[in-house]
């Protein structure tokens, strides 16, 4: 049936919002490739059986028919503002743990954040009309939402009782705050010796450069972590490529990246601690993970390089100083990423470009300075290679360049924006972004868990962020045997 046509008038941005809703513009806009089309891809490389085996055993759509790896694991998450605790708890939740997220009665301030302060991009609770920001909803996965005021004596008692019966507690409050209230690791581990307690922060809960609060109580948030570990200093275009103050500056990640890194490393440390507890010792332990340090852990060789010969890594824009080719450069309709460092791949890239632009072969392939893999990483080699590569790219759209390079089996891909990511055939097919039909907030497009593709215990998203305190009655009843009148009473007192 053809969709019904209707007249609309657009006078402001608000008028367009409803037009973009998933009911009118469902995802995906165009259908994903069919399994037959994909089977043809497998067949081309003589991998028909293997491809079928993978799809039969790993498909995303089968995940709800399989068991959960961490079934039975109980987790409390106690953190505000930052994504480290949220991401860590989400990972555990996606793997099957029962996770309870505790917020103060006024809620996590992260709920209030929305791009450029625009409330129209927040989602409204169908029951209460209360609005919640998308970042919070997207990052609080598979977690129950309860409220508790631990600044009250009664709240702390309840908190202790909750903590007695869990395997894991994730905490992200300012350094020493919980300890001062008498509900930190020192105290809770006495009540529950098997407890794995993980503090997550930006620079640390101890040490001379630990996390600070401003005089007015404002928290330290990302990208302070990236500024402390040299990530920001090392990222961005050099003033030799773009003027300082106009793009040629140290640059932060567009997202709170160190928070994600801290969250996932916290989740790994937690599982390792559980393995040791269950396999060997029966004991819980204390863990501390920070954004600045866990991101420093993955800063390649940067600090180590200083120890070698006093080098201080400089930013190199969209080029990588360690591999050639390995960069993106502008093309007709955006940016094109090309990678291939070993001789085999490097010359293949050249052959591909040479076909359209013969001078490339003349200037690149015949240059004796560019014949050796290591030597191609010299600055002058990058300048020369990328100038000529871009000379080729300026005539091409991203998709054209990608097709040409893929013919030569080069790892190449355009920079995609989220609308393009969401519609990229491969990403729709697996899928990487997916929709969930939530009871409170309607249909939400989300980034799927990359651990969803497993034979036996795929991780999965069961629900997204919840309205504040949605699970109070259920959890307090089930975990502590507190009936609704008691919960209501505590609510009135400001404890819940």
């Amino acid at each position: 049936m053809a969709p019904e046509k209707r007249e609309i008038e657009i006078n402001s941005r608000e008028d367009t919002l409803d037009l973009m809703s998933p009911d009118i513009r469902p995802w995906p806009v165009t259908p994903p490739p069919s399994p037959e089309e994909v089977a043809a891809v497998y067949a081309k490389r003589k991998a028909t059986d293997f491809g079928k085996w993978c799809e039969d055993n790993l498909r995303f759509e089968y995940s709800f028919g399989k068991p959960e790896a961490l079934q039975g694991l109980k987790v409390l998450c106690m953190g505000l503002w930052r994504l480290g605790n949220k991401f860590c708890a989400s990972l555990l939740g996606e793997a099957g743990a029962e996770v309870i997220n505790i917020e103060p009665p006024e809620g996590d301030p992260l709920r209030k954040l929305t791009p450029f302060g625009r409330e129209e991009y927040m989602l409204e609770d169908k029951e209460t009309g209360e609005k919640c920001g998308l970042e919070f909803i997207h990052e609080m996965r598979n977690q129950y939402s309860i409220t508790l005021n631990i600044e009250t004596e009664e709240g702390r008692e309840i908190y202790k009782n909750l903590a007695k019966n869990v395997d894991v507690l994730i905490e992200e409050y300012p350094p020493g705050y919980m300890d001062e209230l008498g509900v930190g690791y020192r105290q809770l581990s006495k009540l529950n010796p098997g407890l794995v307690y993980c503090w997550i922060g930006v620079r640390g809960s101890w040490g001379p450069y630990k996390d600070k609060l401003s005089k007015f109580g404002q928290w330290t948030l990302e990208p302070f972590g990236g500024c402390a570990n040299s990530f920001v200093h090392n990222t961005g275009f050099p003033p030799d490529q773009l003027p300082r103050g106009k793009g040629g500056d140290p640059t932060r990640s567009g997202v709170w990246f160190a928070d994600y890194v801290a969250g996932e490393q916290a989740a790994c440390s937690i599982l390792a601690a559980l393995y040791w507890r269950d396999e060997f010792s029966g004991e819980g332990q204390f863990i501390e993970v920070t954004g600045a340090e866990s991101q420093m852990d993955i800063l390649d060789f940067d600090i180590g390089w200083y120890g070698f010969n006093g080098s201080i890594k400089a930013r190199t824009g969209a080029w990588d100083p360690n591999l050639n080719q390995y960069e993106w450069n502008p093309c007709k309709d955006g940016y094109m990423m090309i990678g291939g460092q070993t001789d085999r791949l490097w010359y293949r890239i050249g052959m591909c470009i040479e076909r359209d632009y013969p001078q490339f072969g003349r200037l690149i392939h015949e240059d004796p300075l560019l014949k050796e893999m290591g030597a191609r990483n010299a600055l002058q080699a990058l300048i020369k290679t990328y100038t000529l590569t871009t000379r080729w790219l300026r005539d091409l759209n991203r998709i054209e360049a990608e097709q040409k390079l893929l013919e030569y089996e080069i790892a190449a891909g355009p920079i995609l924006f989220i609308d393009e990511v969401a519609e990229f055939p491969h990403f729709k097919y697996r899928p990487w972004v997916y929709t969930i039909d939530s009871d409170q907030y309607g249909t939400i497009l989300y980034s799927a868990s990359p651990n969803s593709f497993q034979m036996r215990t795929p991780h999965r998203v069961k629900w997204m962020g919840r309205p504040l305190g949605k699970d109070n009655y259920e959890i307090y009843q089930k975990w502590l045997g507190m009936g609704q009148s008691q919960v209501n009473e505590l609510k009135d007192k400001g404890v819940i």
Partner: protein
Amino acid sequence: MCDIIWCKKEIDGKICNTVNYLDPYCFWNWEGKINCAECGTVYYIHMIQGFMYKGPEERPGEEPDIMPLYADKPLDGYDNYLPGTEGRTRPYNCLPRHIYLGRADMVKFSIRGRPVRGWCPQPPCSGIAGSHGFKWDIQKLSPEVWEEYQEKLKKGEVKEW
């Protein structure tokens, strides 16, 4: 950006034939004058989205606004001008050290003065099928570095940090 100026200027009966590389990002959208690294001829260019919208047009007698970062001479064995060759190419300042090598730095001691195996060639030292133990017998393999290290120790040049 993403273009080159292949200078064909004839000087003393000889064609310059130097390729000046207009590096991406810097020149992607750019208007102004640039010199040839070899013969100094000044060209006016106006680039939009990587295309030479105008130019290169010679501007005799005028001063360049910018110099290329790199240039080479493919017809003369790829002789080249590295970044920062005075009067020819512009310097590249955003570098990890004040000196730029572009080839392996032969390092014998870390910044705190202890031996690190950062130089080559290293004498062969593996056992069966490329096996290595868990020891660097520096005294035997590289006695001269060991000596140097003893000197450093004596002079107090070996530090904790």
